[in-house]
């Protein structure tokens, strides 16, 4: 078996890793420009369907129910939305920080719940047609 050469990190590695970091930082900066200011509403979707839209300005607690069971609890306080409880075992969504800026999301994968900040309340055309 060929032994690895003595050098642990070569010039190629520095270029490769540096390049990846540069791309990441570039994308990050780009995102800051593209991303709008703070949003006004929180949109909750379950299974890809809109569950409800709530104003950020209003302090409230939203219980997200699925098949009559409360799966996630969303708290809106001081203009920020935060997942405060979930029935899944890993609680990753609860550990995520509160969100307030447009397009920021909190995702609960096991329950397929997505909480997203949006700028304005949109009329859901698909629902009105289907409903």
């Amino acid at each position, binding site marked *: *078996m060929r*032994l*690895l050469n003595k*050098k*642990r*990190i*070569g010039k*190629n*590695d520095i270029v*490769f*890793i540096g390049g*990846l*970091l540069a*791309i*990441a*930082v570039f*994308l*990050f900066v780009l*995102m800051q420009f593209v*991303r709008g200011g703070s949003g006004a509403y929180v949109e909750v*979707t379950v*299974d*890809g369907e809109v569950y409800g839209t709530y104003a950020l300005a209003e302090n409230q607690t939203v219980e997200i129910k699925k098949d009559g069971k409360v799966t996630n609890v969303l708290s809106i306080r001081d203009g920020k939305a935060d997942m405060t409880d979930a029935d899944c*075992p*890993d609680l*990753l*969504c609860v*550990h*995520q*920080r509160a969100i307030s800026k447009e*397009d*920021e*999301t909190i*995702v609960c*994968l*096991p329950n*397929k*719940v*997505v909480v*997203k900040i949006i700028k304005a309340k949109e009329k859901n055309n698909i629902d009105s047609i289907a409903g």
Partner: protein
Amino acid sequence: MKTKKVAYLGVFLALALILSYVESLIPFYFGIPGVKLGLTNLVVVVMLYCTGTKEAFGISMMRIVLAGFLFGNMFSILYSLAGGILSFLIMYLLKKIGKLNVVSVSVAGGISHNIGQLVVAAVVVETYNIFYYMPVLMIAGVLTGFLIGILGQEFIRRFQILNKTQK
């Protein structure tokens, strides 16, 4: 020779499972689903260099399924599989090209693991802006991949020296 190989693979699988367990114990949240420390990638990287591609891939897949049943659920198996297969493919190709050292291979593996998981997550929840998380995923992947790569490199050197002296 064959017995030796079986023993080696068993030890590697055990090691990968233990690292999975250790990782499940560490409350290491980046605040994003899909981003993990990637300790088990250490085993995959080492195997890729020391035992060969087929063996590395087999152990990686077995590790994901077993760890999923032990410490996770069906969802975590699905996400891990996506990340595991994508990162393995990327690492294998980079290693085959042969211009880069272990550290770079590991970094690429770390990033692609995160991206693979996020893509599946996006498909599952249907509405999910992946690109919003891309920079963070890349930076996290570089950091964890770098650490794993450094560790892996030292491991591989010793493993190869050990193998050489045994013959």
